């Protein structure tokens, strides 16, 4: 490990002059902020601050869980809301910690970068007076060569081993060779820290300029989806994105293929879609759970799938309407729940007026494989023995009020007030594919079959590659930094005594600048090569 000189306060601060106080305060705070200790404290704070986000439900991860939390802890939840407990990673206090950390990082890295560039450009420092004080030093040996020649040979050898070496002539006629290796360690360390900045920028810009939306896409040409905000079930745009920025494409689900293990565990999902981009020709593309559909300016991820029953309702006046309604899976066996709503039915042809008291809805479950034991859940996720279990409701569906509501369940408020009534009793009515259910008022519901649907997440993140490049560079820097070793060696070549005898007396010393257990071996090998080269 490198010994890091901390940038403490200067040894002798000049006597304070008036007007300089603020400047001194600023400078001292800056020094504090960019010290290793502060970095350590901030790192620790960041770790601690991240914990609540795993304890409390996070809106960005699962908004529904937050709602449930509100119901379960009505007193606590508003408080948590105030301090950002449901949006920890977007909260000001979390941001202030990592922003401080990154300011500290810049303040720390820039001077080190300058120092390092300087160190790379100046020569390796000259040998110390006495080698015995160094962690490694050799015995003396003699050589027949002149000091200058011996030093040159050794310097050459060292350069071959990728040391930076410098030969100096001393006043007493001796020569020294100074050599250092392992600059990559510091380079790597700086690269790592700078890359962290790149990652932060990548993540931040992705948040500002990215967008995403979710959409259930039912199979069939009549159920296509085009990329506009209104067509999403839910969506979220970054602060710098407007609805007009969304790229232009349309998708139609033409096929969905799911295979399952005999236990019911899913094996593979694959969706086949017909895509048109920017008004071009339609092309057929297939994508799977781990292999998203990459489009111009967006990628489409397959998150899940399910079944959408096709229902035809023929009202008391004989007018028929057909709906394809996705039922959402509630368990791993694809037991699915949903509701088919028919607001525009039972319109008296004489008056042409819609009677809200006669709106219809069918709510219930779809089981792709009915369990042998007659339980209310599916026994297998594929459609081996499908059946629909429905309850009919009549009355005001509450759709005209204008408040946005889930299309997957009935308005419980309307049921509570009696505006919407269960008209077929507590036991849901079973329906197999092709069967017709005739209600008391003579209207009919037919179960025509199902279509598959795919749950899609559509996203765009312009800077995720920047974050990736930053992370990969950072990792390379980290490895250089952690696994590299920095060390110096010196050789001294003294003219033989008496000087007239010719020849040279040589000695070597070595200093590992990092915690490097292999250094004694390397040093011994360097000395051995030097002995051989100068003999």
């Amino acid at each position, binding site marked *: *490990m*490198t*010994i*890091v000189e*901390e940038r403490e306060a200067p040894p002798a601060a000049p006597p304070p002059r008036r007007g300089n106080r603020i400047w001194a305060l600023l400078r001292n705070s800056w020094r504090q902020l960019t010290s*290793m*200790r502060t*970095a*350590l404290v901030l*790192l*620790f704070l960041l*770790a601690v601050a*991240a*914990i609540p*986000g*795993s*304890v409390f439900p*996070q809106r*960005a*991860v699962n908004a529904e869980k937050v709602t449930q939390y509100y119901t379960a802890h009505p007193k606590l939840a508003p408080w948590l809301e105030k301090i950002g407990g449901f949006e*920890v990673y977007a909260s000001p206090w979390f941001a202030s910690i990592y922003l401080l950390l990154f300011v500290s990082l810049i303040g720390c890295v820039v001077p080190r970068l300058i120092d390092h560039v300087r160190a790379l450009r100046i020569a390796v420092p000259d040998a110390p007076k006495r080698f015995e004080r160094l*962690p*490694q030093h050799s015995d003396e040996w003699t050589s027949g060569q002149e000091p200058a020649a011996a030093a040159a040979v050794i310097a050459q050898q060292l350069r071959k081993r990728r040391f930076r070496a410098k030969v100096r002539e001393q006043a007493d006629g001796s020569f020294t060779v100074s050599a250092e290796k392992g600059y990559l360690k510091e380079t790597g360390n700086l690269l790592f820290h700078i890359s962290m900045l790149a990652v932060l920028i990548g*993540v931040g810009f992705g948040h500002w300029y990215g967008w*995403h939306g979710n959409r259930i896409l039912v199979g069939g040409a009549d159920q296509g989806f085009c990329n506009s905000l209104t067509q999403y079930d839910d969506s979220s745009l970054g602060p710098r994105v407007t609805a007009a920025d969304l790229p232009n494409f349309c998708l139609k689900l033409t096929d969905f293929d799911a295979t399952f*293990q005999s*236990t019911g*565990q*899913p*094996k*593979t*999902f694959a969706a086949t879609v017909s895509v048109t981009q920017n008004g071009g020709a339609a092309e057929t593309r297939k994508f*799977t*759970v*781990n*292999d*998203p559909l990459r489009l111009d300016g967006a*990628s489409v*991820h397959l*998150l899940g799938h399910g079944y959408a029953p096709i229902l035809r309702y023929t009202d008391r006046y004989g007018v028929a309407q057909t709906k394809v309604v996705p039922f959402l899976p509630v368990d791993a066996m694809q037991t699915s729940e949903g509701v088919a709503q028919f607001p525009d039915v039972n319109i008296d042809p004489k008056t042409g007026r819609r009677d809200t008291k006669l709106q219809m809805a069918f709510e219930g479950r779809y089981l792709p494989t009915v369990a042998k034991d007659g339980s209310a859940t599916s026994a297998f996720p594929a459609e081996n023995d499908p059946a629909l279990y429905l309850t009919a409701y009549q009355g005001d569906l509450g759709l005209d009020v204008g408040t946005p509501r889930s299309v997957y369940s009935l308005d419980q408020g309307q049921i509570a007030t009696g505006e919407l009534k269960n008209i077929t009793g507590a036991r849901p009515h079973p329906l197999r594919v092709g069967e017709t259910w005739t209600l008391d008022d003579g209207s009919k519901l037919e179960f025509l079959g199902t279509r598959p649907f795919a749950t899609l*997440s559509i*996203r765009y*993140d312009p800077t995720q590659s920047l974050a*990736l490049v930053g*992370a*990969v560079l*950072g*990792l390379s820097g*980290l*490895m250089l930094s*952690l*696994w590299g070793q920095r060390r110096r060696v010196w050789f001294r070549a003294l003219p033989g005594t008496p000087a007239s005898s010719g020849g040279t007396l040589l000695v070597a010393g070595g*200093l*590992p*600048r*990092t*915690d*490097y*257990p292999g250094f*004694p071996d390397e040093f011994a090998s360097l000395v051995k090569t030097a002995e051989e080269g100068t003999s």
Partner: protein
Amino acid sequence: MAELSNQLLAAAVLAYLFAMICYAGEYAFGKRSHIGKAAARPARQLVGAGAPAPSSVAPSSVADDVVPDDIVPPPARRDRAELIGRIAVGLNVLALLLHLGALVTRGVAADRMPWGNMYEYILSTTFVASAVWAGVVLTRPKVRHLGLFATLALVVMLGAASLIAYTPVGPLVPALNSYWFIIHVSTVIIGSGIFLIGAVPAAMFLIRNGYDEGKRSFPYTLGKRVPEAALLERLTFRLHAFAFPLFTFGALIAGPIWAEASWGRYWGWDPKEVWAFISWIVYAGYLHARATPSVKRTVATWIALIGFVTMLMNLFGVNLFFEGLHSYANAG
């Protein structure tokens, strides 16, 4: 096959237990075995040559003086201790092989890599921890006295895995079926395994250091016979410095790449992701602290131990306490 895997694991736990008992036997018998003494010398040299960094670690020569050579066992006893120690290492290696067998048969039974759920994940991680420990003890016999604590940690974690997390063999959910998943999980497992075993020298360093400073209450008394503090501290750093880039790659690069392909976002603060992030930050803090001269080595090592706690949280806690996309443990 699945049944065989369970039996092999039971055998492995037993073998670890026996190894632990033998390590304990050696520990109790010999004050310092031959190799302990013989190895202490080159070790001292190493320490002398090592870090010029100032540290709170007493130089080993001082430590040697401080440790009272209270009982110098007679040669016969010493030899017996030596023998028991060797048996312990043998048993340890046997346990490692059984552990490997349990993993392989599990993989064969499921027809995929044996890390599809929490139980298998813990099995793999502890295997890496055990293999790294075996590598350390085989190349540096002088750390053999740590064996008692290393095997103890392994037995406890394997026991916990079987009791809390056991899951019957099952296939992967489709999201887990990708080669990025294999890269992600294997590197996280290797990194975590090394971190886990790194906690053993870390804890023993703190204990030994306390003992050297004259503390004589439990648990410092355990420090009497473990290798010298500087050696333990260095080993701790080595293991962590090796594991950190691996974990960085596995959890913060390969993981997000896979998550992007499969869930559409590379990072979503799912509880498992949160805790991987926390572990990473804490270990970065450890490396930082160790590089900061004004922070004592003991303080730095405490940070490494906090890192260990966060790893345990990630191994056991997150799957048990929180619900997220990663909680495939309960999918079966």
